[in-house]
């Protein structure tokens, strides 16, 4: 699986998690959206969402890797790279 494909899949999965669990509007979940300012998440929300993605794609992301993540796109990049590496 190429990284572009996996990124698209991750974005979809992330959107699903954010909408289902954190009651975020689906159309608000764009790569440019700021997780905290635009989507109103906090660090615990981000952690829960990442854990859901980790479980689903059987990957593992360290806290340090997520430290500087502020947008949906940045999160997708990091998660997508993990999925591509594990494929």
């Amino acid at each position, binding site marked *: 699986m190429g990284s572009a494909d996996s990124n698209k899949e991750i974005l979809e999965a992330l959107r699903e998690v954010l909408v289902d*669990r954190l009651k975020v509007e689906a159309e608000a979940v764009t790569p440019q959206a700021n997780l905290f300012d635009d989507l109103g998440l*906090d660090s*615990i*929300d981000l952690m*829960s969402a990442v*854990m*859901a993605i980790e479980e689903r794609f059987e990957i593992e992301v360290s806290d340090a890797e997520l430290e500087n993540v502020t947008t949906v796109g940045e999160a997708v990049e990091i998660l997508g790279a993990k999925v591509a590496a594990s494929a």
Partner: protein
Amino acid sequence: MSALQNRVGFVTGASRGIGRASAQALAEEGVRVAIGYREDKEGAAAASALCPCSIMVRIDVTSPESVASAFDEIEKALGPVEVLVNNAGLRRDGLLMRLKEKDWDDVIATNLTGAFRCTKRALPGMLRGRWGRIISIGSVAGSVGNPGQANYAAAKAGLVGFTKSVAREVAGHGVTANVVVPGLVDTAMTLNLPAAQREKLVERIPMARTGTPEEVAEAVRFCARASYMTGNAVTVDGGIA
């Protein structure tokens, strides 16, 4: 109907004493309780018989594998744990000068690290459901100290700091974390105190008597029901602290 009706609860060390009474109090509120036990299967069965819709789960909180499999088992049978009571505990008393490394380690491993492990495992499910209650059983030894219990007091005081931190981490997510801090309570764990020490302890209690597991379980029930209390230590000690 109780606000706790049909919630899923898990009480570690529930085969007797405060754990059993807490499981029973939660069951009275309609919680479907998993009765955690390590060795005393008979006690766990007796506790389970008092709690409608309960299951029994073997768990050794000092083992990460055992904690993982216990939670897996509960999730399969009842669903994600929503009310966690970190009660599993043990004492290995001794004056500090003679306290063995192992007695220190065992007490910290069960009373403090065990609670960390179970809470960590339970949290994602609680956050997912946006509702959860973490209730840890501390001890007044952790707030006022007790000669011969430096290890136990350290672990129990540790639970308070642990709980206050977790409470702040998840406060905006429908999950509360509190500690119930019992004084001297009649349980198998305290009945083996030397008679002289026990007498001296009772003398320090303004209410001039020991407490019962059921009296402590009332505070556990309260912590499970309370929606605006978090990071708190609820003392149930006849007035000692």
